[in-house]
């Protein structure tokens, strides 16, 4: 017994004294977990390491949901990686607190920021600019488009190429021919919104509110306007498929379904809004039955869609020389737009993306035109450091309306009360 405990305690002591944190001679890069693109990131790292054996990149990725919290904790204790991937919605939480280093376009090979902007699709960099400075370089631009099941359409006597919905009301009408009921249970939804995350809820609601001419926050970002006329109409659209058109059943696509787009390949929903990466997710076989069309609009003549992206940011606490090196790494990561698309199926927001050689086939079979079209009319979500609080409040409001059939205005009023309270805090 005694010997056992002595061995145990020396074990503990040795483990405790093992100061093994090797000081990284190289560059550390953190990313969030996203199986489609992590593998490509690893390839890029391997490539860099071959060319720069003295300055290897240590690449780590973390589960999506806690990634932001880990990053916050790390930045707060000055132990974050040299370079990290950040999703644009969460960028303001960092830029407003000076924990990101401004990007120097000169170090990326451009003359200045304006010059750099020209290399990208119009507005593609806007999501990453704060007070005139660029804080992150986008790796992908993702947009939401409408995916529909061609087989279901044809079965219902519709022509997927002609009869696809262009507006939200269209979806309701077309959906009534596609929904399948068995008694009172819906066995196949015609259309659905994902309900599993407040991030997706915000993307939908921002898009809808902007299409109606309003916004979730006022222009200065200081007051909640989601309960204004545009916001209420947006929420009505969000919930009308459940209550008015009855082509949607929230008991299917809610927190319990961890894969929001999974209903599509399973044939449980005929139309679904998801991002470009789903093309790779579904795989070429499933995609044969699917057609992608632009994000539905309120007014097809003034299209507004939703765009988001991941971008690379630089840690301001590392010395200048190292920051320059990180810029080199950024250049290396984003240099091949075509490869990004081929390996991850996420479009890259460079200006000449569609003209790159070999893109023609993708335009025809992989709906690239649709995605780029939506990116062009896309707007990033409202920039605010309170993004998570706001999206949680909006998500709760949406749940009240969709699941309990609460009045949209009342629900949004409550959300705005919560949001204004949050905005008022220091």
């Amino acid at each position, binding site marked *: 017994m005694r010997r056992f405990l002595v061995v145990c305690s020396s074990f503990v002591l040795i483990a405790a004294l093992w100061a093994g944190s090797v000081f990284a001679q190289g560059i550390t890069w953190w990313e969030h977990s996203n199986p489609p693109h992590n593998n490509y990131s690893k390839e890029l790292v391997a490539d860099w390491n071959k060319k720069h054996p003295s300055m290897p990149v240590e690449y780590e990725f973390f589960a999506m949901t*806690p990634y932001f919290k880990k990053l916050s904790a790390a930045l707060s204790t000055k132990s974050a990686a040299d370079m990290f991937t950040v999703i644009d919605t969460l960028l303001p939480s960092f830029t407003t607190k000076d924990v990101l280093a401004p990007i120097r376009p000169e170090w990326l090979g451009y003359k200045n920021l304006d010059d750099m902007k020209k290399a990208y699709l119009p507005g593609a960099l806007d999501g990453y600019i704060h007070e005139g400075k660029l804080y992150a370089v986008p790796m992908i631009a993702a947009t939401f488009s409408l995916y529909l099941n061609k087989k279901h359409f044809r079965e219902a006597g519709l022509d997927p190429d002609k009869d696809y919905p262009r507006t939200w009301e269209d979806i309701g009408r077309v959906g009534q021919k596609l929904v399948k009921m068995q008694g009172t249970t819906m066995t196949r939804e015609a259309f659905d919104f994902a309900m599993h995350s407040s991030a997706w809820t915000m993307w939908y609601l921002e898009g809808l509110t902007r299409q109606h001419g309003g916004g979730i926050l006022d222009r200065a970002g200081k007051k909640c306007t989601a309960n204004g006329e545009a916001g209420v109409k947006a929420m009505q659209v969000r919930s009308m498929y459940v209550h008015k058109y009855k082509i949607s059943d929230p008991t299917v696509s809610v927190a319990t379904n961890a894969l929001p787009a999974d209903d599509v390949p399973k044939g449980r929903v005929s139309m679904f809004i998801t991002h470009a990466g789903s093309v790779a997710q579904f795989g070429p076989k499933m995609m044969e039955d699917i057609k992608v069309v632009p994000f539905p609009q309120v007014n097809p003549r003034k299209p507004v869609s939703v765009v988001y992206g991941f971008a690379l940011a630089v840690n301001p606490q590392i010395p200048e020389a190292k920051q320059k090196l990180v810029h080199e790494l950024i250049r290396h990561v984003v240099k091949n737009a075509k490869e990004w698309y081929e390996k991850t199926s996420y479009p890259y927001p460079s200006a000449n993306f569609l003209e790159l050689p070999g893109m023609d086939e993708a335009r025809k079979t992989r709906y690239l035109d649709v995605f780029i079209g939506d990116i062009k009319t896309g707007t990033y979500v409202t920039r605010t450091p309170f993004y998570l609080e706001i999206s949680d409040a909006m998500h709760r409001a949406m749940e009240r309306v969709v699941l309990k059939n609460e009045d949209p205005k009342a629900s949004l009023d409550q959300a705005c009360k919560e949001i204004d309270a949050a905005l008022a805090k220091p």
Partner: protein
Amino acid sequence: MSRKALMRWGGRLVTLLTIAGIGLTLLPYFWMLSSSLKTGSEVFELPIRWLPREPQWSNYPDALSRGAFGVYFFNSTLVALAVMAGNLLFCSLAGYGLAKFRFPYRELSFRAILSTLMLPLEIVLVPTFLVVRGLGLVNNYGGLILPLAVDAFGIFLMRQYIKDLPDSLIEAARLDGCSEHGIFWRIILPNCTPALGALALLTFRDNWDQFLWPLIVVSKDRLKTFPLGLAQMEGIDSAAYHEIMAIAVIAMIPTAIIFLFFQRAFVRGIALSGLKE
């Protein structure tokens, strides 16, 4: 009905409830096992399938290849064992001190120690991280193990247990000239084996699936524990659930082994703890 008949039926009812209870208890296990052998689309099929059409044994090697799971399991085992060892040693030392000795502020220390059980980890996360960083233990095993090496629960348990050991045993040893140290190692500990077994099992189980603390203190892939690896398998909106379940099944094995190992001691252990003041 005669009393005997009533008792017989009562007995049968109890047996029936027992079996039903076991069924309900084990249902999630069955589901987990079954899901781990299905294909990705079978898992979410409706109406649900209880059994896979064809057991997909390949899920297991596939799942393990998604991350450095060999390393993750090793880390989790190492952390759990080391923390278990630390607790066994330091909690029994402290429990003995609190149970059999009188010194000023003893009860106050005990209550203060108990109070450390009442604050959730999340709020002390950042200050604890700062302490660990100050000690240079970020991103290494020390940082994973040391902060967890002593827990008030173990101190509470050992104190209760040792309180019940007869004082005469200790007195006799002292009269024989045995040192205090000697008494601890030769008299107290050997009589505590059941409680130590219980503590070992519970500590191992609780630390086997540490998630939040490793998330914050470690960023090197080769230091991650298996819950971090598991969570990583979920992407921004896609997850191979059949593979996640395969990992979950594998993850149960070490705990199950420890449980079977300590099971008898555990039941006997708590039995003798008395828990009387």
